[in-house]
């Protein structure tokens, strides 16, 4: 069994306390993770400046090259992780075993993380709009227009409270390293794998070990990271988002409520877009914030819902090693039963129809885990509560709503795909502040272009663009 120790600015710390990471289906331990309390985190973070200093000593172009090398190592090579050498297959088995995610999805998330690392130069080019990255290093410089520009780092390290069950989200903190900002990460208790392997890949690629802190632990450790880092990310529920709303120190990531809207001009041809809709709902077992939880159209909504149901309704729980497995397990069975209770409440409302009813039982309970099979629900109006719901399994509401009322009613939408050629609808969607990432045309919500900002631009989160004036000193 692998042992993962906390990492304190690159040095492994042998804790006296451990948490077991267990197999989702058998309950057998697969890893021991040493944990630390908030006191150790706080003590380390008092030296966070040293993490940034270590990165500042490496030019950004070298850090970018190291990131590309890390991408290669992360995706293809055996790496030292904890007290073991971890092959790619080990990683996939371990991650699948603790998160309940099918192995092919683990591989696909791995590829996604690697892809972002391997394209770091382009990503930073786009996110900074072509800024000479030495300006970030020095804090100021000249872009070539004769005006001094300044970007001031707002924190020596980026803190992150990482999620338990969404291995794809790690792309969000990866740019910190080439931006010369250290990392203080609290790995998810069931998914320590990606941060540990990624940090190992960075270090093997030559990034100074002193830039990395990995602090597995309880709320106490997470609380200390949030309290002691001037900039942190947290992944959680809608309640987590609400708790940190408006706090400039915290970038909170939670449910996406991503949606597809079909314009009146194309809705009669909805069958052309069925694959886009199905992929948006079903990919990654519907777990991501970028999965589609609502499809809105003014007509044909029952036919659309029935057609999606026909595609995803039969999907059943398969072994995680099966390449056809589409469903991730709920590793905490109570989460599945609780979610199922909420869905039942949604279905009890008049005007709401379960379009997947004929495809059998939805809740599958096992000894140590549970599954929820895909559901498509029809709502005859945006007024129905289910129209604004998102759950951690493939679940979508197909909502009947006049086109003119859609944007007024969609509510917060991380990814909004508007399938239409209607210029006025496109213009209105472009203006709609409820939508974060806007896709125009038949783009599945899960297809993310990483050259564009996601839930805020990380450059703006970590750096402040400010004035910086210089006058020559009089000759002495």
């Amino acid at each position, binding site marked *: 069994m692998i042992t993962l120790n906390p990492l304190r600015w690159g040095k492994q710390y042998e804790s006296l*306390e451990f948490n077991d990471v267990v197999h989702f289906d058998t309950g057998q331990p697969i890893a021991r993770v040493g944990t630390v309390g908030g*006191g150790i985190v706080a003590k380390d973070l008092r030296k966070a400046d040293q993490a940034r200093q270590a990165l500042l000593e490496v030019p950004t172009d070298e850090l970018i090259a190291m990131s590309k090398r890390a991408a290669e190592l992360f995706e293809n090579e055996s790496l030292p992780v904890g007290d073991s050498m971890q092959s790619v297959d080990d990683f996939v088995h371990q991650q699948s075993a603790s998160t309940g995610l099918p192995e092919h999805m683990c591989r696909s998330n791995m590829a996604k993380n690697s892809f972002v690392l391997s394209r770091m130069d382009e990503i930073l080019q786009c996110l900074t709009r072509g800024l000479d990255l030495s300006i970030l290093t020095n804090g100021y410089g000249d872009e070539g227009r004769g005006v001094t520009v300044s970007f001031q780092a707002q924190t020596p390290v980026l803190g992150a409270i990482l999620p338990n069950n969404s291995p794809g989200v790690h792309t969000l903190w990866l740019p910190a390293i080439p931006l010369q900002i250290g990392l203080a990460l609290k790995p998810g208790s069931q998914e320590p794998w990606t941060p540990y392997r990624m940090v190992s890949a960075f270090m093997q690629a030559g990034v100074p070990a002193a830039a990395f802190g990995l602090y597995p632990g309880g709320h106490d450790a997470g609380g200390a990271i949030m309290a002691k880092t001037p900039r942190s990310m947290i992944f959680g529920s809608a309640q987590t988002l609400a708790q940190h709303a408006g706090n400039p120190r915290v970038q909170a990531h939670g449910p996406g409520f991503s949606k597809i809207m079909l314009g009146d001009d194309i809705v009669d041809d909805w069958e052309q877009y069925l694959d886009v809709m199905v992929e948006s709902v079903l990919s990654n077992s519907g777990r991501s914030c970028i999965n589609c939880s609502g499809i809105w159209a003014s007509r044909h909504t029952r036919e659309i819902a029935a057609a999606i149901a026909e595609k995803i309704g039969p999907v059943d729980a398969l072994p995680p090693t099966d390449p056809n497995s589409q469903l991730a397990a709920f590793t905490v069975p109570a989460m599945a039963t609780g979610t199922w209770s909420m869905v039942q409440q949604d279905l009890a409302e008049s005007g709401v129809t379960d379009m997947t009813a004929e495809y059998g039982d939805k809740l599958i309970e096992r000894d140590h885990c549970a599954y929820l099979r895909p559901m498509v629900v029809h709502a005859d109006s945006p007024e129905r509560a289910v129209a604004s719901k998102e759950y951690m399994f493939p679940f979508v509401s197909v909502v009947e709503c006049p086109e003119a009322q859609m944007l007024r009613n969609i509510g917060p939408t991380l990814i909004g795909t508007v399938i239409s050629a209607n210029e006025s609808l496109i213009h209105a969607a472009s203006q709609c502040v409820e939508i974060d990432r806007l896709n125009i045309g038949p783009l599945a919500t899960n297809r993310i272009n990483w050259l564009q900002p996601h839930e805020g631009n990380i450059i703006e989160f970590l750096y402040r663009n400010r004035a910086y004036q210089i006058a020559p000193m009089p000759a002495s």
Partner: protein
Amino acid sequence: MGAVGEVSEAEFQSSVSASLDRLNEHTLKTVHWHFSDETGSPFWLEKKAELNFDPLKDIGSFDDLKKFPHFEDEWLRGGPIRRWVPKGHANKPVYVFETGGTTGVPKSRMVIEDHWKDYELFSETLPEKYFPRGANWLMLGPSGPRRLRVAVEHLAQHRDGICFCIDLDPRWVVKLIKKGWMEHLEEYKKHCVDQAVTILTAGHDVKCMFATPKLLESLSEALEEKGTSLAEVGITGIFSGGTEFTSQWTRFCVEEMLGGPPEESGIYMTPTYGNTLMGLACSKPITAEDGYKIAYYAPQPRAATEVVTFDDYNQVVGYGETGRVKLYTLTDEFFVPGFMERDEGERERPIGSYPWDGVSGVRPFHELASATTVGVY
């Protein structure tokens, strides 16, 4: 087991046996006090009528206490508080201390002098070098209607010192956590710690203190931010307790916060385990060699602990085995014939200074852990 310290095995076993005799004798005396019409409390005299045995005749040893139903701490909610006062102590001044009570009626325990006696006994375990007589104290923990604040002050006075206190309302802290108001929580903690820093840097010759682990962490950090430390402001002895106290935290405390073991850092820290019902259990000295293992020993015979199986609370587990902590309080003020604590741990063998069973690795009882808000202050 071989010789224990400088004591031979035979002497040690004799000491263990003597302590059990003492516990049995004390149990008999305590039961008679609480169930005699002249001296017992209204609560226990009334309870006596519900029992299917006669405590005055049928309790002859500590083990016989298992005949009683488990003490339910819910009995402590609501009044009248006088029903707990033994008639034998009528007309004496009575304190009431509370526990819990974030919402609803708190649990109350009446005390006359138990808190003084418990802390006087505890005082005997404190090494003079690090807790010098005459030194002043700081109490950085829950105040208000809690036993701890008054008890620590008495400890300081008993050792010829004066105790400085700060206000801390743990019920408000629990509410802040439940509401998710973490910024408020940080500010409240800072508000408390700032007051402690002010006292420690105001020339009051404070050398000893009580602090909960989290407040000790915050205090150490606040002092460090001011460019000083616990050692530099003169602290030499700390006793701590009140929330989850783990070997890992103790290691962090000793190695990183205090700067090493007492002989290097000049600061001695001792963990304690206690509550309003029992009083204070001491830990055997903690060392790196022992993996910072914390083993607590109740102040027997005034209180006793057992580690019992999860499926039969009258069955003690084997040494080194895990079970739930069961608590007995046997003073002439308060009688608890077996209360199931919200903690679990491993049963520890008697040691030379405490020749009776102890408990180590204390942590929240796994069946209740998820419902308990721990680490609150």
